[in-house]
């Protein structure tokens, strides 16, 4: 009876620690995506420069920069919105949230226009660079699959 109780308690502790570990693992997903994006930004820009030339690499780097900023602002906007809904933390003004949300699109359009008017050849690189967020999310998904298979999280 006593040993059974201890075993049950140990199992409960193990499942609790496993739950905490997996929760902390998944809560770091956004930071990992941000890091994946940075690594892809640098690696693919250098690779593109060597393979396709500096024009396309420059466009790609600009697109990546805008996509990175876009993701960062999206995170801040969602966080500010959640603060307002849950009425926690330092609440941002509603006007600021909306302006930041719309500023992202304006920035993307401005970047596209500048690239198109200065060097049209690098437009494809720019458009590819804007997909950096998706590439980061795909890397995170692959990493989570690896972690689930290797570590059992």
């Amino acid at each position, binding site marked *: 009876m006593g040993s059974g109780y201890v075993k049950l308690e140990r199992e409960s502790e193990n499942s609790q620690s496993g739950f905490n570990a997996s929760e902390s693992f*998944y809560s770091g997903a*956004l930071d990992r995506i941000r890091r994946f994006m940075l690594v892809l930004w640098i690696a693919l820009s250098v690779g593109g420069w060597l393979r396709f030339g500096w024009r396309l690499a420059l466009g790609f780097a600009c697109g990546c920069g805008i996509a990175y900023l876009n993701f960062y602002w*999206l995170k801040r906007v*969602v966080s500010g919105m*959640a603060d307002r809904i849950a009425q926690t933390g330092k609440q941002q003004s509603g006007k600021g949230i909306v302006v930041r949300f719309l500023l992202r699109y304006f920035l993307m359009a401005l970047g596209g226009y500048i690239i198109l008017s200065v060097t049209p050849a690098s437009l494809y690189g720019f458009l590819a660079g804007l997909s950096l*967020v*998706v590439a980061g999310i795909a890397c995170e998904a692959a990493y989570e699959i690896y972690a689930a298979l290797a570590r059992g999280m």
Partner: protein
Amino acid sequence: MRKLSYLFMALSLLCFVVPAFAQGGEAAAPVNWVAITAGFSMAIASAGCGLAQARATAAAAEGLGRNPAARPGIQLALILGLALIESLALYTLVIIFAKVK
């Protein structure tokens, strides 16, 4: 109200009044269907993405309002969802640029 709806219907019909239809049989300049289709496809993609983002945000806001303790999970799902939805409009733009060159 009914008069107003008739007025709007008449106005919408006027949108189809194109001077080109009134012209004779002489050869007109070829219509750039690719550009027209590209514009429509971008409009449809933007509308779909906007609708999807609005629904995702509304659902997340409702979930947060009901259960503020579930904030980290909802926030993560919302950010990823919005980023992926936005990327769909971006892919449409890429296809348009590839086609309308």
